[in-house]
């Protein structure tokens, strides 16, 4: 009897490279997130070693900057998700264009425009504070 056979190439982290072909933003977001997951335990250990035993003093600032940069894409996505949920799926949503045409009154409101601007404002503040931190 012939059985249906299929072959699965899913399951390896290397498959993340596939997203570079069609969505570079998604790749940056997921790759930096995964790198941060791996590094975060070392950073955590470093911070506690610094508090309890006074080690790694010179490297604390660098670690902060590194963590800051690695979490920026995720923070941006979180702010986008907040705007999306608050606006009922319209801000940063990619819904069907004809449907959006019909929902113009929802997207013309001031509250909607504020929600759309929020993540951009958030990131600007975020990067500005980083710059100030490095400068000091």
């Amino acid at each position, binding site marked *: *009897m*012939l059985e*249906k*056979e299929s072959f699965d190439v899913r399951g390896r982290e290397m498959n993340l490279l596939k997203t570079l072909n069609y969505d570079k933003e998604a790749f940056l977001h997921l790759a930096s997130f995964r790198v941060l997951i791996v590094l975060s335990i070392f950073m955590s250990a470093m911070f506690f070693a610094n508090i309890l035993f006074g080690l790694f003093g010179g490297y604390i600032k660098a670690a902060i900057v590194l963590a800051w940069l690695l979490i920026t894409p995720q923070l941006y996505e979180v702010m986008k998700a907040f705007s999306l949920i608050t606006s009922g799926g319209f801000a940063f949503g990619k819904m069907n264009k*004809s*449907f959006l*045409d*019909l929902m113009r009154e929802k997207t013309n409101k001031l509250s909607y425009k504020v929600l759309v601007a929020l993540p951009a404002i958030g990131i600007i503040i975020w990067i500005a504070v980083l710059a100030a931190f490095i400068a000091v």
Partner: protein
Amino acid sequence: METLKYDLIILGSGLAGLSAAIHASTISKGKIKIAIVTKLHAMRSHSVSAEGGLSGVLYGKDNKDSLTLHAYDTIKGSDYLADQDAVEVLVNGAPQEIKFYEHLGVPWNRTEDNKISQRPFGGMTIPRTAFAADKTGFFLMRALYDTVLKSENIDIFHEHYATSLIMDKNRFNGMFTMDIASGEKKLLLGNAGIIATGGAARTYKLTTTAYSSTGDGIALAYRAGLPLKNMEFVQFHPTSLVPTGVLITEAARGEGGYLLNSKGERFMSAYAPSKMELAPRDIISRAIITEIEAGRGLVHEESGMSHVLLDLTHLDHKKISEKLPMIKEICIKTLGLDPDNDPIPVRPAAHFTMGGIHSNINGQVMSGPSGPAMANLWTAGECGCVSVHGANRLGSNSLSQCSVWGRITGIGAATYLMKKDISKYDESFSMKFAQGEEERINGILEFDGKNNPYDIRESMQETMDLNMGVYRDRIGMAKAKKELQVLQEKFKDIYVEDKNDVYNTNLRDVLEIGNLLDLSQVIAEGAIARNESRGSHALRENPKRDDKNWMKHTIAMNINGKIQLSYANVKVTKWQPEERKY
């Protein structure tokens, strides 16, 4: 070869097939085992492409509408070839179907006071077509497929191609199928069967239908010795997009679109002055072809196809986004034209098969031209011919027909199966037949002749387009018959390039081409014999309708490999034939 046993086998998973499964399962309270066999994935059947809507008299009192009026519109639209008792069953059952689908989750468009919206459609006196944007068929299929998933007693056989019905002494025993994904042959035995495989408009080259609309169920029934009815009536939908043939729904005209010729005139005023663009489809298709032949058509630069224009630019843009969003997307994606701003090029293309497997008012397949009806085989949907559409179908009546006869055959089959002492399938006969069928299919796999089967398909489609189109003439039809015979001979000497078991689409295509060739010959035969013009069969030499001699159904049967024609009477109840003017 695997053998699987069921109570009810449904071949085809479109609207008719899936609704039959749901009704059969509910009426039997989940006790009967149902198999749905489909050559695609179940939710991808061609029913998803239906755009316009489902007609039914929902708010008769408010709209000054009535069941009698719907029936009259349908019968007049059919050019008085429809069986009037069946039409009454259709119009009586349609409103319930709209409510039933709403309960399954279909998002019908609603009015401001939360009632279901209904829009004007071709040939309908009062607007009675309920719609869900312009993707009605898609939403109905999603609701039906999702509801089928609820039942534990329904097994879906995705991508299983049925090559033969197993008939013994006018009883249905089951079918022989091939699992396309693995190449495994499966014998399905059943005590009852419903054939719901859809139409055969892929016999034509320019068609609105899917690649999968190859009339397999109709051909299977034909080769099993069952009668086909009215195959020569093929509906040409007037507005298919040039050059791809994709359907632009009649609703575009229903919402107020105009048809313009090269001079910018609304030419329908000369052919159907009172209904204009909402006349029945055969009248509009003939009007378009007449305009093109008179030199008032336009020619599409890239493909050389002649066409007319469908103008939606004067409609409210918000209305198009609400009621016609899909055709707007299709025009933009295919042609780069936005219907809001530019008129779109359209021409008639083969669309619907009014004919099909000869069945009675209950959907039971007839074993001969005048019966008797088979006890355990039904047919529903486009592949069956009851006949409710006669010589021409009105738009939006097809979704009603599929739903109403899906319900009737599902309940009929379940009621039959719940009776005590019904005779079961003949297992030994079926096994023997299946072994022979397996050898035949493996034999086809070995073919190493000299002809390319795809070339044969293309020649057949071109011949049908040229000679069996909107207008037909005697010389052209005779030429078509001869060419089809030559192609049948060539088909005996083809090669099958793909010899593998796994997902062999080459073999499946070859089997489909065989079915199309058989059906195209039946269409040609019926058309040549019919010496009048009625509905969608327009004979140039005889443009008038001849009720005295030709108000009858054409029955075609396969007798010793030859097509034999006979005729059956049309059932007339209340409406006597009159002149068909719009």
